[in-house]
């Protein structure tokens, strides 16, 4: 069982990353849950979602101790850093979250910094930053197959051919970046 927590500002596509991961789990006929954050946080400008992918029936769909955390802004990073399980992973949007000693950190989890906004900007499409992050996550912490992620992404964006190609490209750029992180 793998538990994801993906958090950031509304509009950064955090719910969408979770949606693709959950759909990819379904493509492999796994048990999945997707749960958006709901409450004043949304109004305060942050959004988050919990995703669980498991081989067996899922009890609680609420993720408070993620194996894999994806933090798209500084408030989310500060809030959820203590909650990642030891040995877990935290992917950061380093375009927004500064690399400063003033921020708390942890030595017992792997923290990976990815400048997704710059990478998306270089691609000429700022809005695919979240898909780039998805590619990095898939390269470093694959829970489902690459094919399942690709199928899930294609399945959701099939109506718009141009967008589909862009998403594929962004996923691949993220994937390559993730591979380079080792």
């Amino acid at each position, binding site marked *: 069982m793998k538990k994801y927590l993906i958090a950031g500002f509304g509009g950064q596509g955090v719910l969408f990353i979770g949606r693709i991961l959950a759909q990819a789990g379904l493509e492999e006929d796994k048990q*999945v*849950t*997707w*749960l958006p954050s709901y*409450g004043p946080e949304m109004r305060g400008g942050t959004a988050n979602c919990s995703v669980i992918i498991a081989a067996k029936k899922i009890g*609680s769909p609420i993720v408070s101790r993620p194996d894999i955390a994806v933090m798209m802004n500084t408030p989310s990073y500060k809030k959820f850093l203590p909650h990642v399980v030891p040995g877990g992973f935290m992917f950061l949007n380093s375009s927004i979250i500064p690399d400063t000693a003033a921020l708390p950190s942890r030595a017992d989890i792997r923290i990976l910094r990815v400048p997704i906004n710059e990478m998306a900007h270089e691609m000429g499409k700022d809005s695919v930053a979240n898909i780039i992050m998805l590619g990095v996550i898939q390269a470093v912490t694959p829970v489902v197959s690459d094919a399942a992620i690709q199928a899930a992404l294609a399945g959701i964006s099939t109506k718009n051919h141009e967008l589909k190609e862009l998403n594929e490209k962004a996923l691949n750029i993220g994937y390559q970046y993730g591979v380079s992180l080792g």
Partner: protein
Amino acid sequence: MKTLMKGNEAIAEAALQAGCRLFFGYPITPSTEIPEYMAKKMKRVGGTFLQAESEVAAINMVYGAAAAGERVMTATSTPGFSLMQEGVSYIFAAELPVVIVDVMRHGPGLGGLGATQADYFQLTKGGGHGDYHPIVLAPATVMEMVELTYLAFDLADEYRNPVILALEGISGQMMEPVEFMPYRPKALPPKTWAATGIGDKPKVNIVSYVLANEAGELHNLHWAKKIERMRAAEQRYDTYRMDDAEFALVAFGISGRIAESAVDILRAEGIRIGLFRPISLWPFPTDGMRKYSRIRGWLSVELSAGQMVDDVRLTVGSGTPVHFFGRQGGMTPDPEDVAEAFKMALHNELNAGGVR
């Protein structure tokens, strides 16, 4: 084929598949995906979606449509559900089949949107006036939401009674894989009682009251018989690892899922514990619960100040300890918190038997 779907949307789709062709409602978060889905899809199946001016109007539209023999539904959330109570009481008295979805938000008062189950008393003890009971079903997964929506329409028609689906806001928003099995309606007699206003059948008049006391009591006695029939036949529950259990958690809906994870944690520590999950909140599954007479201690896990725990106590009697653990205001406990609460609450019983 399985697809990912939000709980609220799955309920709306299941209602359409079950032949619901009329929806009246007033949108309120976190139930709004239901009217939204109905607004999009109802026309395609030849039905009518209508946004009422208020919940009071919506429940009375539902009342009228049910009297005409149509499968009809409304969906709301806690404060809106409160506004509908007068209508639910009248619908019970008029013996009309209606399906109501209550996607709970917390209270008292306006209440936020976080997970809560604090409508339990209002749902199960008669939120409106008079001696009545709707059937109340509490799904825990999106798949179960579909199954129970199908069932709700059949039960409503069978008993000519309001049936309520109750779920937490986060369950309505949650996506899970879902498959729509073909809806197979239960064989039920035609609705000869319906005020259809056509053909040459005898005139029917649907009323919810009679003024003469003697006749009024006869009505009450008739309804009481129906309540007893429903109580006997419609108790539903699920269990998890109860076969050799010495202790049990009891929880419904999202709490049932959290408690299920807590059972695994406690089992890993060698404690023989299981989960009893009521699916019908009314009728409360007393018969099923009483089968587990060997249970040495119960913990009711709820997102409220402790409501269902009263029914657990009434069911198991005073000979067995029944404790309560809950969170409120939209907060949910982690499974670890539930496991810890269990060990604290049933400390004496655990030690008396020795941890096994």
